[in-house]
């Protein structure tokens, strides 16, 4: 955790400094909303609601954050739990309307730069393949490869043993390999 972040957290705790908390939200909103958008299958409104709940819970529980992990990792842990609770409550699966949504979900909402057709196709197929993974597998892949967390940190976020996390990653990659087999060189 960087010094600036530590300072902001201290200001929130000592003086209930909302401007400092706002800065923390601004710093982490993109990563957190991206993570939740992926978990919710690109449902932006739901993801943003969960992200808001996550920040509110973080605000209430900030005194319990002792810096064992980075602040971002801690936030992802709250977000992941929030998502799981919401999913348990709803007990419904994500309905897909088309591959564009899947691609958007994988790309965090948008594909920004124009790319060669084959690369775009591959990106879309990757999105479809990712959407077919279980929530745990998707989360593990997202945290380890897209957020750049270590396996230990990702296991901490997901609240599972390190071995389980590694299993999720391996299974996910196996499934991706199978689904994307058509892209293998001849």
């Amino acid at each position, binding site marked *: 955790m960087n010094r600036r972040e530590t300072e902001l957290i201290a200001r929130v705790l000592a003086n209930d400094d909302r401007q400092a*908390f*706002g800065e923390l939200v601004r710093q982490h*909103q*993109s990563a957190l909303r991206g993570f939740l958008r992926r978990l919710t299958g690109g449902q932006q409104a739901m993801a943003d609601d969960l992200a808001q709940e996550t920040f509110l819970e973080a605000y209430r529980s900030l005194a319990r954050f002792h810096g064992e992990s980075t602040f971002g990792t801690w936030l992802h842990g709250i977000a992941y739990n929030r998502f799981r609770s919401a999913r348990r409550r709803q007990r419904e699966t994500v309905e897909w309307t088309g591959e564009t949504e899947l691609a958007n979900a994988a790309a965090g909402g948008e594909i920004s730069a124009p790319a060669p057709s084959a690369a775009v196709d591959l990106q879309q197929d990757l999105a479809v393949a990712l959407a077919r993974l279980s929530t745990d597998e998707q989360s593990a892949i997202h945290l380890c490869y897209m957020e750049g967390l270590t396996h230990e940190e990702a296991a901490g976020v997901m609240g599972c043993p390190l071995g389980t996390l590694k299993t999720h990653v391996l299974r996910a990659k196996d499934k991706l390999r*199978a689904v994307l087999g058509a892209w*293998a060189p001849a």
Partner: protein
Amino acid sequence: MNAPESPAPADPLPDDARIEQRLREASPHYIEDGGFTQRVLAALPPSRRRAEGRRRALLIGAILLGCGEVAVVGGSGVPAFVSALLERLAAWSAFPVPGLGAAGTAGVLACWVLAAAAGGWAWARSR
């Protein structure tokens, strides 16, 4: 699925390292704030400072009310009230059951000390 008939040679999936590389490249792009932070800040519970201010005002109000009550009940002011209280305590000290009056007096005094300490603590905490 969009698998091409002849995949681009630059993307030799499903090689493990290539998959990992692709996953890293698929990192979500930066999501613009778009008022999200303001929505979060607006949804925060009331400021702890404001709540403390209310608590402080309540404490001061209670003290003033107590002082007013003492002045009114004491008739000719606080000194009269205190002397009446001391007389009452003295009467308790003369209670027929040995020690009970003294214990009562000590209890009342202890309550006073505790109340004063609690008030002081609450005051210091609210500052």
